[in-house]
């Protein structure tokens, strides 16, 4: 009777120990799956992401600068001050706008990479908590793979806004004010009924 009880206790303990060992093995397996899925997210990955960010936005900024330069020079020429010290000052300020935005873009690229780094870390933490709670290595592996795939999907960046709009505004305002000055005859917006001359101000 006593011997029988002891044997039953032994087998219960063995079963409990085995169950615990299996549980721990499942936890370790789930953790390994998560580590493997998130392995690509190293420093090189984030550096590459920042570079992609810059590669996307920089050409847009460069194009906008070319257009802004042309608009500014046309605006200055229309006022007859295209070769004045005021023009040199305005072009200098345009350069400030451009260079500041260029450096800000490079800096923003680092910020974007940091945001991604934070997002990746958060996802990894979630999965580790999920693995500990469910003790299901298959679920951990599937979920880790799914999240890693989502995170490496090509980023969707929105287009760069009109960076030079506010800088060019005073020059545009001058032209509008000049066109609307008192005593000015009617001018069609299409230029079709322009009273005289063939020149056209580039907006």
């Amino acid at each position: 009777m006593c011997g029988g009880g002891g044997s039953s206790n032994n087998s219960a303990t063995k079963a409990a120990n085995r169950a615990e060992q299996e549980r721990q093995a499942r936890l370790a397996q789930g953790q390994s799956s998560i580590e493997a899925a998130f392995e690509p997210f190293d420093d090189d990955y984030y550096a590459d992401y920042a570079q992609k960010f810059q590669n996307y936005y920089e050409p847009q900024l460069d194009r906008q600068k070319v257009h802004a330069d042309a608009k500014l020079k046309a605006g200055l020429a229309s006022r007859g001050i295209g070769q004045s010290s005021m023009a040199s000052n305005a072009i200098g300020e345009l350069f400030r706008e451009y260079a500041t935005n260029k450096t800000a873009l490079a800096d923003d690229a680092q910020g974007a990479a940091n945001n991604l780094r934070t997002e990746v870390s958060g996802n990894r933490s979630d999965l580790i908590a999920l693995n500990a709670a469910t003790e299901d290595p298959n679920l951990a592996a599937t979920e880790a793979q799914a999240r890693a795939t989502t995170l490496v999907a090509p980023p969707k960046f929105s287009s760069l806004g009109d960076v030079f709009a506010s800088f060019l505004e005073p020059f545009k305002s001058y032209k509008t004010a000049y066109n609307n000055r008192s005593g000015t005859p009617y001018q069609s917006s299409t230029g079709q009924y322009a009273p005289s001359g063939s020149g056209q101000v580039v907006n």
Partner: protein
Amino acid sequence: MCTGIETALVGAALSGVGTAYNNYQANKSAEAEQKASNTALMDTLDRNKEIQQTSANALQDRLAKAAPEEFEENAQQVEANRTAPVQAALTASTPEQMNLAGSTPKIVQDSMANKLSDVFRQVKTDAKNLTKLNATGDTWLQAGLDNQHLADSLVVPANMQRGNLAGLELRQQNAILNARKPVSAIGDVMKGAGSALGSAGGSGYFG
């Protein structure tokens, strides 16, 4: 031939020896149970100690990284990383790309060259300050992520340790049951015989 009193005394002594023997056996059993229980506890603690070593190593690595010298070195590296692309962007946006018409008087051209030079210097300073500011944020972001990583790396070991501890009671109970030695009948027989002899002696059976 013993007298009744002598028989009663022998019976009392025999009964005492029986009781003492029973106590001795019970103490031996309790000692064995205690030892078995302690062994189960030590096994569990040893198992957890191995796991705990992994956690301790992770914590040690993190603390080493947070040490003042290491932290400062890391902060400098982070700042360099933040600055490099901005410097490259600055180099790519040289003032030479800005120009006026070729027919512009030299005095205006010179004025613009001066203006551009000033602007470039200011932008350079602004960029330097910007990267310095953001590098501070990056350094603390990195520290936060390192802390998060440490916390994540402790989740599974802590869970395993809890699991081992949860089974401890069962292991101890089983160890106790296995170590328990039932008190043998010898002591009880001696006690019984002693009691019988005492009764017989007292009742004058032996004269």
